[in-house]
């Protein structure tokens, strides 16, 4: 299963070593007279997990929603697989900070909702949803309603829903911010497992430095308002080590320190 999935990582498009799935070109965004983003240029490589990191209010959600096509930019362009996009599309799936689960629908229906909207038949929906419910560790909870789940489990539903539509790019907006610290670590480990398993491109937003360094192939540091790119960091960490060893890895600790130094002059 996993072996056969590997050649399919880079579909049709010509494979280069740094093949960008998503390109962000000179994006600017203002809300009324609040300037949220100024001139953002970024590329996200296929199959990698890139984190947008920055203090609250620096425009991370705004940038992610512009990439998702949920919020229009004032100027600039978003390209996905080489094509300019102006709205949401099937190549991108979003995981919401507040989960955005339908309280009146079961876990099964919530996970299958993207497929339901596409008119996929009930049997196929159930088959696909069941697979992803299991993958995120919620087997047995199919018929539960969101209010019967913990915050962490609700976000697993949100992640399974995004996986179920088989998009190339997953956009995750602070998915673990409502999860307590102990479960957060478990979540980060599960996320790495899913990244490995699903071979997709992840764009991940967080304001936690440790979280960013732990999960990312690349970290984009945003400066406070107006949001600009202040630094791009590629953590060099041996991911094959155990979670505890990674958190003790000198590469991990140095990167955390480096980002702290980068952010220090904003904190004053």
């Amino acid at each position, binding site marked *: 299963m996993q072996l056969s999935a590997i050649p399919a990582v880079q579909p049709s498009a010509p494979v280069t070593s740094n093949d960008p799935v998503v390109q962000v070109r000179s994006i600017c965004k203002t809300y009324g007279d609040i300037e949220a983003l100024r001139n953002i240029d970024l590329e996200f490589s296929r199959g990698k997990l890139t984190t947008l990191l920055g203090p609250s209010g620096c425009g991370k959600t705004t940038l992610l*929603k512009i990439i*998702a*096509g*949920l919020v229009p930019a004032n100027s600039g362009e978003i390209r996905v697989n080489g094509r300019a996009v102006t*709205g*949401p*599309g*099937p190549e*991108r*799936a*979003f995981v*919401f900070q*507040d989960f*955005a689960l*339908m*309280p*009146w629908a079961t876990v099964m229906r919530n996970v299958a*909702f*993207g497929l*339901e*909207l*596409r008119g996929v038949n009930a049997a196929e929906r159930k088959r696909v949803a069941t697979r992803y419910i299991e993958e995120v560790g919620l087997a047995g909870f199919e018929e539960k*309603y*969101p*209010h*019967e789940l913990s915050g962490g489990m609700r976000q697993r539903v949100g992640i399974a829903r995004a996986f179920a*539509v088989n998009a190339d790019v997953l956009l995750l907006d602070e998915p673990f911010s409502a999860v307590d610290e102990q479960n957060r670590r478990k979540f980060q480990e599960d996320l790495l497992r899913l990244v490995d398993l699903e071979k997709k491109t992840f764009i991940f937003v967080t304001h936690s430095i440790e979280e960013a360094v732990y999960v990312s192939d690349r970290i984009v540091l945003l400066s406070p308002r107006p949001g600009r790119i202040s630094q791009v960091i590629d953590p060099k960490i041996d991911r094959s080590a155990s979670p505890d060893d990674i958190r003790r890895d000198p590469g991990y600790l140095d990167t955390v320190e480096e980002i702290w130094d980068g952010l220090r002059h904003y904190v004053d």
Partner: protein
Amino acid sequence: MTSSVKLGNATGAHEAPVNVGQALSRMFDSKPFLWTIASLTLLFGAWEIAGLIPISIAFPTFSSTLVAFAQMVVDGSMVYAYFLTLQPLLLGVAVSAALGISLGIFMGLSRKAEWLIAPVFIVLQAAPMAALVPLVTFVYGIGLTAKTLAVIMLALPVIVLNSYKAVRHVNPSLVDMCRSFQGTRLQQIVKIIIPDASPVMFAGLRLGIAAGFIGVMLAELLITPTGVGDLITYHRSVANYAHMYAAVASIIVVSTVSLAGLQSFEARFLRPEKRKR
């Protein structure tokens, strides 16, 4: 309904110092409807005692009211009265619900419609409708149309305004979610906006139906002496107080049962997660 159950639970826990009391309280906790029965028994008991004292010669006991009710059912006068009263009520409520919810959703979705329609209903809701009910007679006489209009006048504004508020307060994150999975505008309305708005919409519908009952009773008491309103007026005029109270109580029961029915309809078809709570 839920709140009365909760209230009962709290009292029960408080008043259970002995073992028998504790056992009783546990039994009540496991079967919430026992609280409803207990509460009704208390109410009817108090009514019976108040009637026996009596607090007024025009105040019958609960048991004589019950007997009067049975008499009116048997002689057919109660059945015929409801036949006359329920027609304008059902018609008026159906029109108000269909029109009110559609208008409300339309206003919730479109700013222009909001500017156009909302002020009208805000004024109508603030207006003392009871005073306007007699005016309907001038235009439509005293038939079914007049009674139906009275129901609509009272029920429609609250239904429209609640539906509109409900749609306006739909969770924007759910709408974004639907858009992010390329839901069409129609899917957005049917699969997200209406279910998310339905609790507030149904609250409006319940208020609207309660107002509809007021409307039909006002019409029957003020302008068109027919139906249950006439039953009340007639038995009052001949000093049949037990019969008068039976008619009044029956309309309260019918109104309560309709509202409870609406609530279970909502839980069953629109918000299934509420049933599990």
